[in-house]
């Protein structure tokens, strides 16, 4: 998992970076609510220069998916 992404997730959700694993899931983590999800997207768009569509934002539910989106955007860019 991209270490910078793990850091952003940890900071946005206010959790230790060690606890950010690819299995981390929106539904299961209380701090990962809809507002923090949007903030996370904003932060990673800024950090990695990517742009997610509204559907992508809505349908992304795990750290692994975010990691994949970031990775795909970076290799294509």
């Amino acid at each position, binding site marked *: 998992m991209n270490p910078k992404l793990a850091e952003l997730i940890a900071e946005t959700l206010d959790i230790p970076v060690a606890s950010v694993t690819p299995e981390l899931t929106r539904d299961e983590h209380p701090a990962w609510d809809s507002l923090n999800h949007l903030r996370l997207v904003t932060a990673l768009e800024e950090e990695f220069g990517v742009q997610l569509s*509204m559907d992508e*934002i809505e349908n992304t539910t795990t750290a692994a998916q975010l990691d994949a989106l970031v990775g795909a955007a970076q290799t294509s860019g």
Partner: protein
Amino acid sequence: MSDDWRAAVDGAGDLAALKAVAGERAASGLSVREAERLARRLEALAPAPDLRVLYLGNHTLDLFARCVTGVALSRGVVVEGQVGPYDQHMQAVLDPAQGLADFDPHVVFLTLDLQRLLPVLPAGLAALSLKDRQGLVEEALGQVAAWVEAAKAATGATLLIGNFWRPRRPHLGLADAKLGMGEAELYATLNARLFRDWSSDPQVFVVDVDQALATTGRRAVHNARMAHLGKLAWAEAALPELAELLARHFASLVLPPKKCLVLDLDNTLWGGVLGEEGPDGIRIARGDPVGEAFRAFQQAIKAVQRRGFLLAACSKNNPEDVAEAFRLRSDMPLQWSDFAASRVNWEPKHDNLAAIATDLNIGTDSLVFIDDNPAECELVRQLMPEVRTVHLPRDPAEYAHLLLDLPELERMALTDEDLRKTEQYHEEAKREASRVEVGDMQAYLESLGTALTCWPATRAELTRVHQLFAKTNQFNVTTKRYKPAELERFMLSPDWHLEVVAARDRFGDLGIVGLFLLERRAQSVAVDSVILSCRAMGRGVETAMGNRIKAVAADWRPDGQLEAVFRPTRKNKPSADFFTAQGFAEAPLGDTSAPDDRHFRLAIGEAKPLPVTGITIDNGEREDEPQAG
């Protein structure tokens, strides 16, 4: 955010430590994440808040509220925020059980997204008739007014209303300008009316949200995806500037106000060193770019003076040189008469600052000191940490903006007294001078020819009355800081008597200088508050007010007791002897809940008016409006 700073926030063990860490970022500004981190830590420490703030609106405000808490803390204000349910601002004020009752906010902030308030706006505006478009203005203002009315019935809190922010572009594009009450005109009209409609209401303040968003940049603050996905009308980028705006309001509501701007002269008010370049060599002329920058700074200072601040000059110079410079350079925006006090000499600045504070009868903690010399600034910072010291940047082009940006110079409203303050201090200086000439106190007081007018306070005086309660530290027997809504209730209640005292003398009009508040109880009359501005102290107005208190008490409870409390603070020693001087006897109650309180009593039947020298008092109906000031 740096790891060190973050660790310091998370490690702050108490409020003082957290305030100190937050304060480090007060000048540079906080990012949303930094502000949020502060807010989280503050929540964990759970100190008693200075202000409880309720946020209401028709868009998502949770993140904004946390951001405001962080920014306010960096200014030294502890805010406990609560966000009302989305789009239920009317319900929240109509049904106090929805939060107003339990939370009991000091401030309620309302912000409405006009496009949600008037769903016809985005697409349908052009389809409406001109009359219907104009009707939209009344519709939106009507909704705000209905909310204010309901809110006032439910709470005495200060009401902050955000104005309406314009979209990036009108939906009709360029043609909007030709529509007649198109979108641009609609927003401009609404906002102009909002300001005007609430300008004289002391409980309601319109917050210029539109301006704050424009300052950040409309491209950055409108994010359509966030609006659609999260009902976030303001993107994260918009929040720091908006939070700063609210934090300024909060600081001005609760922090002790600064009162005087102390200015260095060389390379502060003008370019160059007067002692070397002479009055013709200093740079302050029109046409000289550097001179123009200093002129802009002087004009900004002039504007701050009109906010009710006193100006003082503090400079290492020969006094004759400075006098000559102000005489010869009468083209400067600032004149020597603008300064209410000055110290031009070679003494250390911290001594001079203390002397200036003494001259003006204010505390050194009321001073804002501005100088270009880093060494002078550092010394004052170390020796007088209570003074707000501002070190000017290298480039005078930045001076004016820096001054107008200072949060310590904010006032939420101005009174006639504020607008005339410098004039009043010059009148005071003349009074002082004549005190020196006359020598004999009795003769001096008579020579002043003080005339007092007393009358029960009405709404017309509410702003000044509130200001006296909020700002008076020295002659204030209980230092109760009532809110405007509470003061309004005292004015209307038959069991309370709130009376104001205006003064004038042969040197000028001092305006409303004092007040007292009495409560009628079953067997007694309680003196709740007695307040006198320091400008009117020591000339017998105290006794005149004491006599009025006795007269009102005699009307109410001729056989009862007058009961009073003096509650000592760090600053109100000048009023400590008031009750004894008026013939009250100290009567300890053995009350352990407030051990510092001193209690006084006086049998109303035995209360006699005391003689006052050289003062005429008019306590009847006033024939005309009080003079400005």
